[in-house]
């Protein structure tokens, strides 16, 4: 019998292909937007900047301002957010042994939304990003605390606690929306819809390094997700301290989600859809699935955001587009899931 090696011929093609797709998407996306920039100009400008051939006195054109100060940061942020949400989604799905889990299940999004709403409505001196990040992580902590009994955190209790915390925080948001004036209400609603308009180098410096750190950790632990997905007792039998690893992964996944939500609001469905699409292509085994999901998440988010800013003259919140794609996709998934998940 032909022994299948860790590296199959398909693997050899798939990773370079994904990287090339990411780079190509990056370049194409650079030229799309309210202000069209021809690809040739982008190449010229990028080449000059990188090779240092730019003449010191040459004026920075409008095109270059748009390119370097707006578009490149936004694209980088879109990729990082897509990777984070997808990476968080795929690892939580494995952990909770449920393919229908999304990264917001533990209350991160509701918490972050409440934080943002508080900041937008009443606490203008606290930046929205910080308020939502702190509240997002607090919500998960609360869920973990609620679910904890006798030094253990049962999976089902944790999911229920996440739902309870989410609904509690959502009620808080509704109360704030009732109390504020229409102008602030508008900004809260826009924030809730999710968008990458806040992208800037400053934002990137503040969140992307942590995201990369979290994603690298998830990537390194990817094979262990197979074992964790077999349930706590089996993980223990196979020599893993399941409770400890589970907490580590929940912390990383929540951090990634909270960071994403804090800079771009609630962008739903990415963390659910991308892992599924990835499973259809590379299978369920997490050693391959995790890196593939992370790369796909980046590419997917980049394209959705490019659509959001290129489709019309005004900016469509990207959360709306992902939800528009998400609902039909979920229906497709439910139809299909009968054959995939039934054993």
């Amino acid at each position: 019998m032909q022994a299948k090696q860790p590296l199959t011929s398909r693997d050899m093609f798939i990773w370079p292909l994904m990287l090339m797709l990411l780079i190509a998407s990056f370049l194409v996306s650079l030229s799309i937007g309210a202000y069209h920039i021809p690809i040739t100009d982008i190449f010229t400008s990028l080449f000059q900047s990188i090779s240092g051939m730019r003449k010191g006195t040459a004026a920075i054109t409008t095109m270059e301002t748009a390119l370097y100060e707006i578009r490149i940061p936004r694209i980088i942020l879109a990729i990082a957010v897509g990777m984070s949400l997808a990476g968080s989604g795929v690892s939580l799905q494995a952990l909770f042994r449920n393919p229908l889990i999304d990264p917001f299940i533990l209350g991160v999004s509701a918490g972050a939304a409440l934080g943002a709403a508080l900041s937008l409505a009443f606490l203008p001196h606290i930046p929205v990003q910080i308020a939502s990040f702190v509240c997002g992580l607090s919500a998960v902590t609360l869920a973990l605390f609620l679910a904890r009994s006798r030094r253990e955190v049962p999976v089902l209790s944790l999911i229920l606690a996440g739902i309870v915390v989410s609904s509690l925080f959502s009620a808080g948001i509704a109360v704030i929306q009732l109390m504020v004036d229409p102008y602030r209400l508008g900004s809260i609603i826009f924030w809730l819809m999710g968008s990458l308009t806040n992208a800037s180098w400053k934002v990137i410096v503040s969140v992307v390094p942590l995201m990369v750190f979290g994603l690298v950790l998830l990537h390194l632990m990817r094979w262990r997700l197979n074992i964790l997905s077999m349930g706590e007792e089996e993980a223990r039998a196979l020599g893993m301290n399941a409770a400890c690893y589970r907490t580590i992964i929940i912390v990383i996944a929540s951090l990634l989600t909270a960071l994403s939500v804090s800079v771009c609001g609630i962008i739903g469905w990415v963390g659910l859809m991308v892992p599924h699409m990835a499973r259809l292509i590379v299978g369920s085994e997490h050693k391959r699935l995790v890196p593939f999901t992370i790369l796909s998440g980046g590419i997917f988010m980049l394209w959705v955001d490019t659509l959001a800013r290129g489709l019309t003259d005004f900016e469509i919140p990207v959360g709306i587009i992902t939800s528009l794609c998400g609902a039909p996709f979920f229906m497709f998934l439910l139809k299909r899931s009968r054959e995939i998940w039934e054993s």
Partner: protein
Amino acid sequence: MIEVNQLSFYYNESEVPSLDNVTMTVQKGTVTTILGPNGSGKTTLLKCLAGFYKTQTGEISINGRNLTTLSSVQRSRLISYMPQNHHTVFPYRVVDIVLMGRSCHLSLFAAPRKKDYDLALDALKTVGIGRLSQRIYTKLSGGEKQLVLIARSLAQESPVMFMDEPISHLDYKNQITVLRLIRTILSEHKLTILITLHDPNMAAAFSDEIVLFKNGKILRKGNIAETITSGTLTELYEIKITVSGEGKKMIQPLDV
């Protein structure tokens, strides 16, 4: 070799012990079967011996090492445990399931290498299902799944093997296949195997030693002749049972 000395275990706040003063020894190179009615504590005993639960009193030593002093990795290098209820959500390939047995030999951030793949494929060949290595585990039949789990225990390369009702969901032929396989593995790898079973006929046919277990206590232990008698089985199951035959035992319930 497994040595258990005066082991007692209570679930949480329960007043009644689930395991009551259990003392037993399992010799290297033998299959010992725990036989007992539902709820007698067979699974609890296996789980305590595998280190899943912290026992209140008593000592467990596996190959001369005190179980409580071992880390989870050290423990699973010593003991493999095959669970009774096995439910996999994700459609992994068979070889990926077997590779999980390598977990205790790999460092935290490592993934299996070629050597581990080869070991996993060898283990599958040993249990006779090498051809299934690339198939989807969740789509296999019950018997095939059980063989995959045995292969995983083999890939774990631990000298002690626990199996909780390894044949409970299998048809008659597959029950025999799996138990025969367990005996083959035993003689080839010099393991210490402890299993739980429901069928006294199967237990009598395939075990070296039998432990009759009831209400968390050992009713009787010893070789087949000592444990499989009309009297002991009647006492164990509380129904009239007759045992006939010398050497090969034939166990039948009366009043059917």
